[in-house]
């Protein structure tokens, strides 16, 4: 509660003062955005991570995926994506993850619950990462789905089956 209150308080200040819309002096807007809201967001990420993993792991959040920037995914050959759906109904959403790719590598995405390999598309772009990995995530109501993502040399991929490691939790 104390951690999520940091963002609650920051949002209260921001809404009361019409923050970050040009209706304050610039140094005040900077304080709203850089210190109060960003700090509140950081604390809430800790809350979400500890709730979803019961404190056993630290999940990484990437705030700049809209400009195709995520150090974690760009510098990992194998990682897990956890996608949470806050809606009270199931949805299917395309997920776009910044990755660095070369022509000799491909990405394999496995839905961990079913073990199904998903159709993916790697598109080149002019963002910070040179590629974006796109796939369709089927998400349950008020719940999450998780995906194992691995970068393979394209020649080796055809010869072996991908087996996810770790405990699969439905």
């Amino acid at each position, binding site marked *: 509660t104390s951690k999520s209150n940091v963002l609650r308080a920051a949002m209260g200040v921001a809404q009361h003062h019409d923050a970050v819309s040009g*209706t304050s002096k610039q140094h005040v807007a900077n304080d709203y955005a850089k210190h109060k809201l960003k700090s509140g967001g950081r604390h809430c990420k800790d809350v979400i991570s500890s709730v*979803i993993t019961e404190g056993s792991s630290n*999940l*990484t959040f990437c705030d700049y995926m809209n400009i195709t920037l995520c150090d974690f995914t760009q510098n990992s050959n194998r990682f897990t994506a*956890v*996608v*949470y759906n*806050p809606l009270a109904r199931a949805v299917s959403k*395309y997920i776009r993850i910044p990755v660095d790719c070369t022509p000799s590598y491909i990405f394999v995405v496995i839905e961990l619950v079913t073990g199904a390999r998903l159709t993916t598309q790697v598109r080149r772009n002019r963002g910070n990462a040179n590629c974006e990995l796109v796939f369709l995530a089927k998400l349950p109501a008020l719940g999450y789905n998780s995906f194992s993502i691995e970068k393979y040399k394209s020649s080796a991929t055809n010869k072996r089956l991908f087996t*996810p490691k770790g405990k699969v939790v439905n």
Partner: protein
Amino acid sequence: SDDITISNEFYSVNFNRNSGLMDSIVNIESGIKIPVHQDMLWYNGSMGNNASKQQSGAYIFRPNSSTPFHCSNDGKVKLSGSNPLVQEVYQKFSDWAYQVVRLYKGIKHIEVEWTVGPIPVKDQWGKEVISRYETNIDSNGYFYTDANGREVLERKKNYRPTWKLNQTEPVAGNYYPVNSRIYIRDAHVQLTVLTDRSQGGSSLSSGALELMVHRRLLGEDSKGVAEPLNETGQFGDGLITRGKHWLLLDTVTSSAKQHRLLGEEAFMSPLVMFGGATPPALV
């Protein structure tokens, strides 16, 4: 030499080969095909005139002319190629205005991701950038905007429902808050634009709607801040903003359900997190 077209199961979007601009949308299911001309333009922020000293600023939108300028007369367009999941068209209006139009496989809307900035102001002209959609929908001065994502209110150009309006600002006087969606319609067809953030929007002529996506001003509107709306950003040359519009073109009767469901998904979009190579133990 040909027009560029992207399509999925639900929509087909055509881009003019000469201008590179969107020029028609087809809803494949309902068989609706209408011209939709989309462009990015900017109003010059007023520094005050003989009629009023009021300048355009954070609180006040006041262009000095009803006619906006084009962001570019030399737009460039690029198709990303045939792909299994997403079809994309890249549009470059100018060095500071870009756009990507996307159609995802199995998804029943058109995604327009706009990127605007840093807005140049070396010419000493404050700029208020809009995205404008022009269609042949016979909307007759009526358009609809939401109020905090809840009730959608009918707006009528140069009209207020509870008093006799003396309209002195032909553009700004018809702008309304758009928190999540704006639409125009006639008896049969409705064009809905959902936004990912609050913006100003209007319909200044029949069949047209526009949304203000970014602004950078050199004047001060004298509402207490005593600074112009001129954020210079990390590198001192202005902010770059990126956002999305989601378009729905369908019959009037089926549009309401679609924009309500899509609005929910936009407001409560999925949260993406990452763990290491070994999947984290999730509860």
